[in-house]
Each structure stands twice: as structure tokens, then as C-alpha cells.
């Protein structure tokens, strides 16, 4: 057990836990956040990604202590004052979901892309979503939603 200090959604908090516990489980159990999901535990599917210093990073393997000093943002933090983030809004308008299990990964990957490249082309959008597994085949809507989010900005 060790004290691990994490900055999640703008708040810095201390936690007594196994420092090797991957961030995903800490977010779900300590922070009661359920947006980031377990999908594979292998960094292959993107279900668990969160924004780490504005990059979409998987959380299912890397120890929580390795995130100390970094700015962690989860999907729950994207909408502010009941106002949806442009990407959330675009996803809703495109009805870009079927079962929705991958939505966290798709949304977070899209937000990270737009923060780092506000005008991506289609191939850059696809590259950004490539890390996320969607079994329902909703990809065309995710791609369209990201394109719409760009044009609405």
C-alpha cells in the first residue's frame, strides 16, 4: 500500500492503495466513474482510454502511480454546466451508437484528436479511432460525427 496522488477531472486527491493497480480500476472503484470500461486488459481495444495530458491513453494495464503528476480527464468531465462537449453533441446528433460499450473509447479518442489537431482530415480521423474496437460496426457514424464536430466548432 502506498499513497498515490492523482489529478482527475480537475481535482487532486490522495489514495491509499496498491500503487501497481491499473488506473482503470482506481477510476471505477475509488472515483465511482464508470465511463472508462474494461474491454481486454491488453491495450488492444481502447474501451478504457481517458485523456492524459490531452492524449487518449489506455488505463487497463498501466499502474496508477505512473499517472501521478498528470492531468487525467474522463468522459464524465467533458460536458460542463449541463452543456455537452462539441464531440458529444455531434455523436448524439449522428446517433453514433448501437450497444455503446465502445463509446467512451471513440469519444475520448476523438476529443484527443481535436485538441491536438483541430482540422483533421478523414484519414487522420480514422487513424485516431483505429485503436478502439467496435463490434457493432458503428464506425461510419463515429467518423461522420467527428467530421461534424469539426465543422460546428
Amino acid at each position: 500500500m502506498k499513497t498515490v496522488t492523482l489529478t482527475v477531472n480537475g481535482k487532486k486527491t490522495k489514495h491509499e492503495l496498491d500503487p501497481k493497480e491499473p488506473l482503470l480500476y482506481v477510476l471505477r472503484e475509488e472515483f465511482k466513474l464508470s465511463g472508462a470500461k474494461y474491454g481486454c486488459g491488453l491495450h488492444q481495444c481502447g474501451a478504457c482510454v481517458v485523456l492524459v495530458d490531452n492524449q487518449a491513453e489506455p488505463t487497463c494495464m498501466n499502474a496508477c502511480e505512473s499517472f501521478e503528476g498528470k492531468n487525467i480527464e474522463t468522459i464524465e468531465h467533458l460536458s460542463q454546466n449541463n452543456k455537452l462537449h462539441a464531440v458529444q453533441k455531434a455523436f448524439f446528433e449522428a446517433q453514433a451508437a448501437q450497444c455503446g460499450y465502445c463509446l467512451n473509447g471513440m469519444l475520448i479518442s476523438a476529443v484527443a484528436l481535436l485538441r491536438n489537431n483541430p482540422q483533421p482530415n478523414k484519414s487522420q480521423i480514422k487513424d485516431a479511432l483505429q485503436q478502439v474496437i467496435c463490434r457493432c460496426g458503428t464506425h461510419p457514424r463515429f467518423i461522420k460525427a467527428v467530421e461534424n464536430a469539426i465543422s460546428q466548432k
Partner: protein
Amino acid sequence: MKDTTTNNQNRRSFLKASGQLIIGFNLFPFLQFCANPENQTTLSAYPGIEERPHTEKAIIDSWIRLDAEGFVTVLTGKQELGQGIRTALMQIAAEELEVPFDICHIINGDTAQTANEGYTAGSNSVEGSGSAIRQAAAEAKYFLIQEAAKLWQVNIDQVEVNNGEIHGPENKKISYWKLLDGKFLEGKITGEAPIKNPSNHVIVGKSIPRADISKMIKGEPHFIHDLRLEGMLHARVVHPPSYNAKLEALDESEISQLPGVVRIIVDGSFVAIVAKREYQAIKAREKIIEIAKWESTNIKPAMGDLFSDMKNKASKPKEIEASPTINQTIKQAKNQLKSTYRKPYTMHGSTGPGCAVAQWDNQKLTVWSPTQGVYPLQNTLADLFSIEKESIRCIGMPGSGCYGHNSADDVSAEAAMIAKHLPNQPVRLQWMRDNEHRWEPYGSAMQLTLEAGMDQNGKITSWKTEIWSDTHSTRPNGNAGHYVSARHLAEPFEFKKGGFSGGSYRNASPLYDIADKALLLNDYEGPLRTSALRGLGAYGNIFALESFIDELASSASMDPFEFRIRNLKNNRAVEVLNTLKSKTDWDNLSDETKSKCGIAFAQYKNSAAYFAVMVTLENEGEKLKIKKMIGVIEAGQCINPDGLINQTEGGMIQSASWTILESVQYNEKEIISTDWNSYPIFRANDIPEIEVHIINRPEEKPLGAGEAAQGPVAAAIVNAVSNHLGKRIYELPLREYFS
């Protein structure tokens, strides 16, 4: 009609007497399911409704409840699987009741509340549950109009409904809720209530957005995976390394000392671990895998011998469609053709591994489950634990998309098996990725030999299909042996595969107008666990059938559209093909473009939605890529056009992924497709342009559409690749040709 003031007491005592837990039900009852995620203040919050048991299907109250003032609660025995059924069913209810869509809420399968509608499968929900809800809503409105007429002492035709308010002469008006005054809609569904004319529909046929998406985009709790109960423990299972492996030795003392471990459960070869934190359960599972010793037997036959084994093991095939003349009519035809097609084992491959929560209290069991059928689950758990089914409550919750019988039932049973060791504590079990990839029941490998005769005008005169396939349904419907882990117990339940279902020959009989047809089936007991995967046998059968149609067209030197249309008598089928032809501008495409295109068509199950598709390829280096897919779907009356398009697009992409990339791999020891690297599926860079067009027939009954694309897309891709290469392809997947 009964008065609630007297009955609430009874209902409360029922709940008490049944001893069932209320926790978890109406998990998020105060959340606003408003369609517009930003506009959540226009309505007061839906308070939820008090639980009441389902009594019988024939009363209105079983489907439609007006308990909450100003709100409609719809009940269905069907589950939301990501197909948008919640929205579609609420649209149907709102339309018939003539209330605004926004005031409707829905409760999905829950053995303590909803009707038993079996499994949510076979693209039956709108056809089945939808028509029950439509009739119940019409009866409710009819009853309320009659009540108002009585109250005002006027004729029923002087009364009309607008937005849940009944209007009569002299500006009289009263709301549904005021009129009911706390009573329930316990009248019988008589079938006498008039159903709205589709030409007056204002909600059905509209692309109403799915309310659940507004929750999911914000990461709000939605899935079974997100359910957190007070004092909940975390469990993991360690499945054997292969199907028949037996546990030889496991030093439990080494495990029970690990941090957070609450209990290790070893019952025969069923091994599970329970810990306080999820990560502690995962670590303990890793340790068990490291130290457990198993005795394994080899998996036979080897992968390379699978298709020859199918033929070697076959004896006399079943005659599904018998024709004593078939061999002769084929032989006598002007042209004859015979081909054999093969598809491998394929995976459901759910993005989120199976998860369930279970709790035992005083011999009563509650299971929160992503199952496709809460009642079949209840029945089978009763068999597993040898208790009355009334002691078990199964509450359906959204899981990760399942696309058929995946891990959902197994994980639910295992959660209950584990929780039995820890009474009064909720236990959450989630499968790990390798549990899911290795232990889900796959879509069966299939082999199909097709033979046909054709006259000089390109008219098919005779057609023979012979299928070799393992079963396409081993759903647990009362027999605990269908749960894999029940087979691993010290006192194991026997798995009786029991009657191979009709799934193997689903869609095998051509819809084309053919005078002489025969259909033969060889049931094969293959090496891998199999069950229902989206479309069942229809995927393999249509892949073969529509590939063969292209071969016949080519042998008759005919255009693939023209050949199909010439051999069809079904007008709706012809219109779907003609629409595809015009949407793709087929007549104006150059021969070079056409050489990169493939088309295919099917009516799912020969009774549900009609679907036709064209696939266009492009070159990427020396390999191929799908450039575009254009689909046309006709599902009778369309409830929600965007929902239909969404699901069809998804089916097309999933099928393209199966067809091009997927095949479950195993060696003599174990299944080696254990994750997304060893079993790759389509990702964003594989996704082509996609277009779906709907032919809406509001005057027809709605037809199941969720599985319509699976088979035709496979055949269209194969036809496109075959056209492009100038040689026919007979075996899936097509990985070697694609980038």
C-alpha cells in the same frame, strides 16, 4: 378496474412475502430519459413506478401502465441489445395511445414485472413485442375514451384524444391520469380496439433519437458492468485451458493469502475467486492460472482436417425438403453446375466481456444479467440449483452488444454459483478477455454443396443443397448442462446438445422460383462449442446460395441483376433489387467498374426483411480493399428509419469483418484466438463508405431487420472478389486478398 388504495397493500405484502430485493431495480429511476440530452428541464422527473408482478399477457396492464402521473410506462419482455428496441417500442406505444413520445418510459425483461417473451432473438422483437404493445396501447386508449364518454354521458364518437388528453363536447376535457384516478388498466385485451391507420401516424416512421445514447455519451452508468451495489464483491473465473480439461491440483493456500481475497471456490474443475477489489480478483486469477495443474485431452479433429471430418462423419443426411426427382431433373437440365463452399468458426466477439451480478438471500436468488431472455435464464437457474423458479428473480440489463448467444447466460449462472458461497452479499463477476474469446459458443463452421440445373434462357429449373454444420443453438432453455461451468462441477450437469435446431438450414432454401428443390442436412458434432450467432446458418447459407447464383448467372452469360430478377416471382424482392440497381446507377457503370463490384440479395429467413447490397472494391497496393457498400432494405412498416439504417449499417460492417478477416484458430491443445491480435476484426481504417436506403411500406406489418444484412454482404464481397480476380472463391475468410 381495481382501486389502488386497496391493492397497494396487497402488492406491498407480495413484495415482502416474495423476499425479493428491491435494490438495483429501477436503478436510476430519477434520471430523465428525455430525448434531447441538453433539454432536460422541460419535463418533471419521471418518478418510476412501483413494482407489480406480471400476471398474464392478456391484460393491458401487462404492457402499458399509467401509474406515474403524466407518464406512460411501457413493459416488454424483450431486451435492449443495442438495436434500439426501447425507442422503437415506445414509439409504437406513444403512437397508439396518442401521447407525446417524451413522456414514455420502458421497463425491459424482469421476471418480477414483465411478460415472458422468451429470447430477444431472431429479429422478432418488433414483430412480436411490438404488436402486443400496439394492441395493448390501442385497448388502453379505447377503454379511456369509453370511460370519458360514460362520465360525460355522451356518445363515444363525440370524444377524441389529443396528447393524452380526452376532449368532449362543450370544451370538456380530462387527462388520462385524472380519468384513471390511480386505478390500473387491468381490462382484458379484447382485440376490439381500433388500431390507427398508418396514414395517420405521426410518431411511428419518424427517426426519433435514442434516449439511451444521451446517457452513454456522458459516460453515465448504463451497462450491467456499471452496476454497483452496497458491499459488492468482485469475482473472476478460471476456465479450464481447453474444453475437456480437468483440474488435477491447485494449492489453495497460496491463493487465499493474496491481498483482498475473500474466497476461493473450487468445485470439481470449476474454479473462481472472490475479492474485495476488482484488481485483487484479477491478480488472484493470474496466480491460479500460473499454479493450477490440469489434465487435458487433445482437440480433434485438427483445424486442417475439419471439413474432411464433416464429410467422413456424416451418414445419411436429413431430408429437410425432399424431392425424389431432384438428381434426375438436374441431370436432364440444359446446363448444370455444382460447387462447394466453406465457412470457418466465427466469434460473437463482444467488445465488453460478459458480466453479471448475483445475490442470495434466504435461499432466494436475484441475478442482474445481460441475458437475451430473463425467463429462460430463470428456468435454467432453477434446474442448476434445484429450486423453484419462483425463488429466482432475473433482471435484464444492457450488456455489451451480444449478436446472439454469447457469454451472457454463462456469466450469469457463474455469478449465481459463486454468490451461493457468500450469502447476503452481492457478487459481481466479469469475464476477462481470454474467457470471452475462448469460451463463448461460436458460430459453427459450415460446408455447403449446391447443385443446380438451368434451361437455355437462364431459368433455374432444379436446385439441391446439402449442408454440413454443427448446431446453431445451444441456448440454455431449462437445462443447466448448457452452462459450460455447470459441466465442470464435481457433480457435473450433462450437456445434451438435443435436437439440432433449424438454424443450420435457415435461408438455405432459395427464395427464387424453382420447380424442383431439395435440401439435405448433415448434423455434425464438431470440435468447438457453438450456438446462435447473428443470422445463425443464414450467414453461411446465403454466402453459398448467392455466390452460386452469380456462378449460374455467369454461366448463362447474364447480368447478375437481370438473372436474379428473371428467377424471382416475389414482387417485393424484385423491387428491392430494382431499387439497388437504380441507387448504384448500375446500367451506366463501365465494365471495368462492374468488374470490381458484386451484388447479392436475400429475404432473411424467407419471411423477414428483404435486403440487397452492392460491394465495390478498390486496389490498395497489390491487395484489395472495400471501397463502398450500398444496401437497400425493405422491412415492411418502418418504425424508426434512422434506427433501421443504423442497425443495417452495423450488420453490413460486421458481416464484412467476418467475411474478410475472421476465423477462430485452435491447435490440438487449445483455442489460440484469445484476444484482438490473434483474432483481428474490422477497425476504423477498414471501414468503407456506406449507404443504406429504405423502402418503407407503412401499410405492411413490420418485418424483423436486425440480421438481414449478414448473408448478402458476405456473398456480395465474394462475388466482387471473384469478378475482380476472374476466378471463383469458395472458402472464407478472404484475408489473403485484402490489405
